[in-house]
């Protein structure tokens, strides 16, 4: 469901389903906790395979961000489709999570958080 791998100086959590919904929300929180426990505090969630996101998954993403921040880390998102990006901007998630159009070469957190990410 969620594949974890190291990419440059951050970890990628790749969602392996087309629906990021209430069924996957706990898996995301668990994957973030496991990644942080291993000392990787900069994480990008890869939405390439995702068609839609629901409110439960969004809440899990914010919860995961707070978990990462407690450890001085950060979470960003990448490769959103246009509907999901529209939703992120509508509920102002783009103000708290950086949005990348593709997996970046480097991710070390908080720069740009309050200016709407880098998309």
């Amino acid at each position, binding site marked *: 469901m969620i594949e974890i791998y190291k990419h440059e100086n951050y970890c990628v959590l790749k969602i392996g389903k087309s629906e990021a919904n*209430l069924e996957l929300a706990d898996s995301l929180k668990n994957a973030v906790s496991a990644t942080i426990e291993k000392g990787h505090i900069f994480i990008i969630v890869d939405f390439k395979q995702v068609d*839609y996101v629901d409110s439960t998954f969004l809440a899990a993403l914010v919860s995961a*961000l707070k978990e990462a921040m*407690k450890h001085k880390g950060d979470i960003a998102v990448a490769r959103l489709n246009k509907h999901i990006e529209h939703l992120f901007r*509508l509920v102002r998630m783009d103000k708290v999570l950086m949005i990348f159009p593709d997996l970046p070469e480097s991710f070390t957190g908080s720069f740009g958080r309050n200016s709407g990410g880098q998309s």
Partner: protein
Amino acid sequence: MTNKYLFDNRIQSLTVLLDEIIQSIRNYYHPHIQEDIISCCKHALIELLTNGIKHSACENSTIEIIFSLTDIVIRKSDSGAPFLPGEIESWPLAPERTGDRILICQDDFNSVYATVKSPVSLFFDVEERPIDVIDPSSAMLDHYGFLILSKVSATFTFDYNLESKLNVFTAQIELKN
């Protein structure tokens, strides 16, 4: 024109029904509908169907799509447990509560309110606060679904039908911003 769909409140059925309804909206307005409007319809449907899965505690929900030249109305009805948000304990409310604005939930950045329109109906709205500092220890919004529904809709309302005991949520999405 109105299209009516029966949803079995199972997560496995959500994507198929979502795709079917979105395709019907595209077909009805083809080619004069903006992708932003399609996105709003999609998000509203996902949240209303998910609400059925999580909260209705009954076998089926009914989804109605009402098409017009000015807006698309998406209505979800179920006969499950009555929707009782915030401080509301039962329906109907006392008539003197009409106009009261009730806080449903809030986090660092958003407060979701319901205003009493009548003893059996509510109107939702969102108050946004500036996002300056994220507090990792502060409370989470426990009703992101209502935030999304309020944001994608021109109006988002709830009505409780005392006779049929139906919960009815209605999202009205304008065709032009």
